[in-house]
């Protein structure tokens, strides 16, 4: 008596349904395309308004300025997809950069080792936040807020609140070097973005990340080690933020305990603009990168048009609202039947 219906099998490879699952694929494309379209539109407008905008050097400059934010945003995307949040990104940049600078300048540690120590500092901090969140059950909003304060304080203690100068040329390559015409930070961000996109879309770990955010209890009962996944994403976020901090320090050519303080909110903004749900379970690296590009483009464009930095903040806030509004309208159009 079972009714058999022929079911067309859709053979496709890759990826949990990363857009809102209830949206049709077509609408998903239109909406994803929507943000791309907005970026393209802004590029066209800016190209008309400023003759410098579409020059190679300016485009590379946008990418260079965005690469740091991209690294932070990639890590935050993982964390937010698991329905947690990492508020310690900015101070993790400061901690890693200050630590590496102090190790190199004050105790003459080799550059590669000092850079590695900076990354380890990010990793360890992330693991601590993760363990506090999962084992001690302190919400990540609180545990990473505490980490924000601790890391920021530690960075200031190490640098004594002043700039640490005297970094060697080898250290400068990471932030200021070029391979061919491409700045090294852009290459680093692209390679890491590609690797993280691959991990999220095609590996079991990626599937687990979506599963934890989509329903932690259902995921646990399906064999996912929920605690380990959450610790892993916070650790990844710590390492990526640390790498961003090292690049920034290299570009500034000095260790400073105060870098990165504005980056946290920009990273969260980019994640949200990219369509990742703060409720977890939904999101993508590509979306977040588009968010980063949008913010980078606007900052650069407004600089070219000589708009004051204060007004730039207002503009970016307005764009976040607009992006989320578009998202909500899309949801209303595609969801809510029956």
């Amino acid at each position, binding site marked *: 008596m079972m009714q058999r219906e022929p*079911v067309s099998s859709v053979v496709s490879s890759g990826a949990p*349904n990363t857009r809102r699952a209830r949206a049709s694929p077509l609408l998903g494309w239109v909406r994803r395309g929507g943000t791309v379209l907005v970026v393209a539109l802004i590029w066209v407008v800016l190209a008309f308004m400023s003759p410098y905008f579409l020059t190679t050097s300016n485009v590379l400059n946008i990418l260079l300025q965005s690469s740091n934010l991209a690294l932070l945003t990639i890590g935050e995307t993982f964390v937010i997809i698991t329905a947690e949040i990492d508020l310690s990104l900015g101070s993790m940049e400061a901690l890693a950069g200050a630590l590496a600078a102090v190790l190199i300048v004050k105790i003459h540690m080799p550059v590669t080792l000092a850079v590695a120590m900076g990354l380890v500092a990010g990793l360890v901090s992330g693991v601590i936040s993760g363990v506090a969140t999962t084992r001690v059950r302190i919400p990540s909003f609180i545990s990473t807020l505490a980490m924000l304060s601790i890391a920021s304080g530690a960075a200031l203690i190490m640098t004594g609140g002043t700039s640490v100068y005297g970094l060697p040329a080898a250290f400068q390559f990471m932030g200021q070097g070029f391979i061919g015409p491409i700045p090294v930070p852009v290459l680093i961000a692209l390679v890491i973005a590609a690797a993280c996109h691959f991990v999220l879309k095609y590996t079991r770990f990626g599937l687990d990340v979506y*599963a934890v955010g989509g329903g932690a209890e*259902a995921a646990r009962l*399906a*064999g*996912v*080690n929920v605690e380990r996944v959450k610790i892993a994403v916070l650790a990844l976020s710590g390492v990526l933020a640390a790498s961003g901090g090292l690049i920034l320090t290299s570009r500034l050519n000095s260790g400073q305990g105060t870098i990165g303080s504005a980056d946290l909110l920009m990273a969260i903004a980019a994640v949200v603009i990219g369509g990742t749900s703060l409720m977890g379970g939904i999101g993508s690296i590509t979306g977040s990168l588009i968010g980063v590009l949008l913010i980078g483009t606007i900052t650069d464009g407004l600089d070219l048009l000589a708009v004051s930095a204060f007004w730039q903040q207002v503009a970016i806030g307005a764009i976040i609202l607009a992006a989320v509004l578009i998202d909500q309208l899309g949801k209303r159009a595609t969801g809510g039947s*029956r």
Partner: protein
Amino acid sequence: MDGPSENTSLSASGICKGFPGVRALDSVDFDLLHGEVHALLGENGAGKSTLVKIFTGVYQPDAGSLRIDGRDMSLRTPAEAFQHGISVIHQELDLIPTLTVAQNLALGRAPVVSGIWGQRFGVVRWTKARQDARANLDDLGVDVDPDTLVADLGISQAQLIAIAKALSRDARILIMDEPTSALSASEVDELFHRVRRLKARGVSIIYITHKLEEIFRIADRVTVLRDGHRIATLPISEANIDRLISMMVGRSLAERYPRAATTLGDTVLNVKHLNRRGILHDISFDVRSGEIVGIAGLVGSGRTSLARALFGADPADSGEIVLDGRSVVIASPQDAINTGLALLTEDRRRQGLILEFAIRENIVLPPVHSRETNRQYLGRLGTVDYRRATKVASGFVRSLAIKAPSVMHPARSLSGGNQQKVVVAKWLATKARVFIFDEPTRGIDVGAKAEIYRLMGQLAAGGAGIIMISSEVEEILAISTRILVMREGRIVAALPHAAANKEVLLRYAATEVEA
């Protein structure tokens, strides 16, 4: 029942409603008398919710007319329906858990102090609001302190508060959607008692349920919908369960509870002296291949705790679990999956499935975490072979007759029965040997229930051992080959199929006798 009579509270005639691709309602007539409880039956998708949404102003009918108290009426918004005295008591109650009972009742219509403070600034007279709440609750015979937080109330009490809230807004037509799905037997009695009082006051009630037995206790008349048509409206005295079911599913179900002929094999699961402090006490039993062991007991008797202990979700403190003759340690769901156990939870939407995931991702999630099966799905670098996952998922969609356009369809939008089949599929994909079903047919309509039973029969016939926890005594009696009864964390009786009946089960479940 032709034409609206004097006594008609709500009548609908010739209601049609279509959505793209579906005719949800086709010339449906319905009438509700003053002081009547009118049961509305139908499988999922029969048109019940569409009809209710038309009565509550959520949808506009494409054709047909509505009359309230004999007057033509069009309900363009939920607010209009509400003004005409139509209220719905949803399964998810429209109460705010962090507010008190009095605050909930006062919401949107709180008494304010006189003068500018009340008019302009909305300063509330909380003493008056509390008194009003008290009066409302007394009126309904509910003994709850108006200062209690709704979050601190049990579901049945909260439900009564929701009813009180509707009545306090002069509801004359109450629509109750599956009001008993989360209630124990005694709470159901309480609710029915209150419903009868409402009837006596002339309140009309449309009663929607999947539990057919209930309507014989509470309803005056019953209307059956199927595929958007009204099949019949009859007085309850002329209805019986078999007749109603055949009207609902459109065919006579020779068996409501199909059983597959199975032969019992070796013991697959042997549980010895399992304890979990304060919750489970000295649980010992075994399950043979081909067997369906039913676990009966009241809500809170420890049945779900036992399932979760076996599966490692809330591991036992002591005891031994032997699977296929090997003693195994199960400290986490991961361990359970590796050893070939499957848990199908009662709460499918929160624990059984990841609703945002497609069918395919839901199905592939357990097997990629099972030592037995993960190699079939994982590539180098820890990649998931989604091509293979699609193939496997499509196979299950076909073999289990899951109704979905494709394996990429999100689990959220499937019906309860199809969601349950996806859960079965994800465990079949792990090659599980022992399946623990916790309330397998909760919230699933009659036709789909039979399919789930048949599926369980097929699993058993295929050599699996099955444990089925159920609060539906009839289901337990009909499906199980052997029945365990739990009370207060212990197994108090083990009965062969032949020795069990309703009275025996209830006696063991509810009283102090030992087997």
